[in-house]
């Protein structure tokens, strides 16, 4: 063999349409995991305003809740957390070797349940926002 041709990474994300259920589950789990880590930092920042005094904390929260963007982000956060939890349970079963032949169905079930939870939460999060 004199030379060979390396096609690089063109086979990866360029072919997202051909990804299988397990692959999508992995991508979503990574993505939601990173989002949740990012959220933890803002969460700590908001909570730490309580170390000043109670009034500052209340003021911060009320200020945030008055922003329409924050209301929408809260819906997104719930969706992300719900999927991460549900897929986490799926992965727990995968690690225990239980029902591996139904792992794709479990992923779809996690997606549908996440969608249902998210839709059901919209009235609560967006009440009084408009």
């Amino acid at each position: 063999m004199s030379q060979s041709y390396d096609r690089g990474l063109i086979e990866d994300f360029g072919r997202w349409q051909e990804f299988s259920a397990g692959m999508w589950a992995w991508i979503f789990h990574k993505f939601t995991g990173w989002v949740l880590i990012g959220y933890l930092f803002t969460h700590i920042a908001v909570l730490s305003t309580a170390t000043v005094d109670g009034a500052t904390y209340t003021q911060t929260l009320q200020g945030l809740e008055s922003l329409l963007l924050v209301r929408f982000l809260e819906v997104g956060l719930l969706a992300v957390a719900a999927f991460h939890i549900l897929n986490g349970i799926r992965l727990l079963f995968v690690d225990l070797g239980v029902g591996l032949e139904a792992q794709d169905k479990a992923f779809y079930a996690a997606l549908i349940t996440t969608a249902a939870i998210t839709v059901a939460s919209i009235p609560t999060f967006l009440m009084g926002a408009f």
Partner: protein
Amino acid sequence: MSTQIQEQETETETETEQTSEHQTRRLAEKRERADMRERAEADLSDADEIVRLKIFRYDPEVEGKKDPRFDTFEVPFGKGMTVLDALIYARDHFDSSLTFRHSCRQAICGSDALFVNGRQQLGCKTQLSDLEWPVRIEPLPHAEVVKDLVVDMEHFYDQMEAVEPYFQTNELPKGELEEQRQTRENREKVKMSTRCIWCSACMSSCNIAAGDNKYLGPAAINKAYRFAMDEREGEDMKEHRLNIIEQEHGVWRCQTQFSCTVVCPKDIPLTEHIQELKREAVKSNLKFW
């Protein structure tokens, strides 16, 4: 320009030096190729259906073929035709330089794993009627292409060798000629894992193996499973095998994307085997005192 003239000179020299025997053989071959083409044209006009193949082409040794490209071939479709059948037809009738590996044509030699319509499949086991047309045929991803559809398998074989893919035991039976019997239950346990044909489809589909060249990969771990779960090898050999697969680039790299299990042409539950080895590795390291 100068090289062209030189080439012409050498060509005429050899022609005069060679006996006419060589010349007649070459002409005969040329006629045969023309016949094949004519037959192919007849086949194509007779065929009810014509399947179009888009085949990845690359040849580093020929100037003008160094840039990878896709060639389109039209092949008369017949009932029961596989991807490999179509490739063989295209090579025999249209372009004898079309290169791909194949041997047994019955999904046991593991030579013709290809990337067909965006998925790792065995050419000989994939029916054209099951695919979307035109059919796009490429070499396996995440492996270096040597020529056309042929990829370098050296790395895959290295990983397979790394898990010591052969039976070894310190517990030999007492009698000199006594057989090493396996229980039926134990045979059932390793049955699926013994079916591996070393085609490398799983390795090619694995996202982790693509990014981590040291990762053993699904096929090698499955091979380790086949022997680690074999009771005849004995306890100390099992410990030795677990030591190999629990290394940093062993079973723990698997992130259960199930890509390997989806593409395996022999339906081996690869992810299940990897997960079971993970649990075995944990069990052998847990101490409750």
